[in-house]
């Protein structure tokens, strides 16, 4: 088995009285492709957002590559833990090129020239080189999300977190975005993906986890999970989403 990149022990998150995560134990190994499933409001986003501390966990321990994630080192950690949002979150006042180069240049991962060269290569690769100087508002959702994905790739992250990357897209652009994610995964990226695209989940996952009421209640390979679900809760969920 390959080495462990992320280790989470007894993660809990409460919003006031609302206990959303009630003790999650989870470990992610290099090159794993984990798809996170679960009903709406079960805490999938919260789980992902606790990993890079977009949300402050209430308690629990998380380590990344053997180092405990703390408030002190979180900025460093985030450079290695990329995130792709449901609503793309390209920076509105920056051009596509600036969106891609701001962080790598500012954080001195590479100089601006190298960053721009890398950005151009990635843009060319996704067929959007001609949008380098455009502002996000002038792009379609699918274009924005693909740029958001290569923006995350610009940092050379160890893992990438996707929170429903296609949920805000029109059906036509979903395919383009899924193709790009597939490509990123095939290149060996370690990923965690929250998605409602069951076909894609099944195809891409090396492991599926199912979150319900603040716990991971079932996990397994896609075949195990989709063909032989163990818990009644998952059986019921699959019946609904797969008809």
């Amino acid at each position, binding site marked *: 088995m390959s080495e462990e990149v992320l280790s989470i022990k007894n993660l809990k998150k409460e919003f006031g009285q609302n206990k959303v995560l009630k003790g999650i134990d989870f470990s992610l190994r290099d090159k794993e492709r984990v798809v996170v499933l679960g009903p709406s409001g079960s805490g999938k986003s919260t789980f992902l957002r606790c990993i*890079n501390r*977009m949300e402050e966990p209430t308690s629990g321990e998380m380590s990344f590559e053997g180092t405990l994630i703390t408030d002190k080192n979180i*900025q*460093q*950690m*985030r*450079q290695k833990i*990329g*995130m792709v*949002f449901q*609503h793309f*979150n*390209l*920076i*509105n*006042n*920056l*051009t596509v090129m600036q969106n891609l180069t*701001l*962080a790598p240049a*500012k*954080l001195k991962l590479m100089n601006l020239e190298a960053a721009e060269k890398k950005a151009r290569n990635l843009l060319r690769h996704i067929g959007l080189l001609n949008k380098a*100087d*455009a*502002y996000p*508002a*002038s792009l379609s959702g699918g274009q924005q999300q693909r740029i958001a994905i290569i*923006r*995350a790739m610009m*940092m050379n992250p160890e893992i990438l977190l996707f929170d429903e990357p296609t949920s805000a897209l029109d059906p036509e652009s979903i395919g383009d975005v899924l193709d790009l994610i597939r490509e990123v995964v095939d290149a060996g990226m370690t990923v965690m993906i929250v998605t409602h695209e069951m076909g894609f989940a099944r195809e891409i996952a090396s492991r599926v986890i199912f979150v319900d009421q603040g716990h991971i209640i079932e996990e397994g390979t896609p075949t195990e999970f989709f063909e032989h679900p163990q818990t009644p809760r998952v059986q019921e969920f699959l019946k609904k989403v797969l008809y």
Partner: protein
Amino acid sequence: MNEFWDKVVELFTTPQYIDSLLHGFLLTLQISFFAILLGLIIGTIVALIDTSKRTKWTILPKAICKIYTTVIRGTPMALQLFIMFFVIFAIRGFPQIIIAILAFGFNSGAYVAEVIRSGIQSVDKGQTEAGMALGLSRFTIFRRIVAPQAIKNILPALGNEIVTVIKETAIVSMVGMYDLNMAAKDIGSGQNMASYIVPMFVAALFYLATVYLITFIIRQIEKHLRRSERRA
């Protein structure tokens, strides 16, 4: 009507009147300019404290800012001016203009703070999160992402506040300062002019022209900011 124009001519051809008007106008501009500057500084600091993360270090500053904005926004400007003049700076010989600048600056600061605070908070949370997820510092996120977007919401409201300050400085005549408003009254009550309408009409034009100019400049800046985003 003829008499009106005669008085206008008289006003603009009598050096003493022109002198009074310009002196008053200059004082109005001086108080306004420095009060606005002070208000911007105070308002920015208060807004930054107000929107900063809640930690044990920011609880007290946040509370102080809250009290400051509540008191200033909840009491009349004229009363604040009186308190500055007759309570806090009841010192003989202290330059009146400085007291007035402090009074209007502290007043404006509370409103500017509110304008900047709501401008910052109107920027989509996803923009900050994008910066955070890339490992950028809070400072960089503010400077490169939040501030440039907030400024577009802030500018129009800030223009209103500047105009308000300029007009509101007219109440310094209540503490005997010789601003544009006072000059108009002074000229009008004089033996020779013996008419309030003309000097006050002219003073109104001065205020209007100033306000119009400020509004125009702010519009131009807004337009410029918007254009830079529509490119390509």
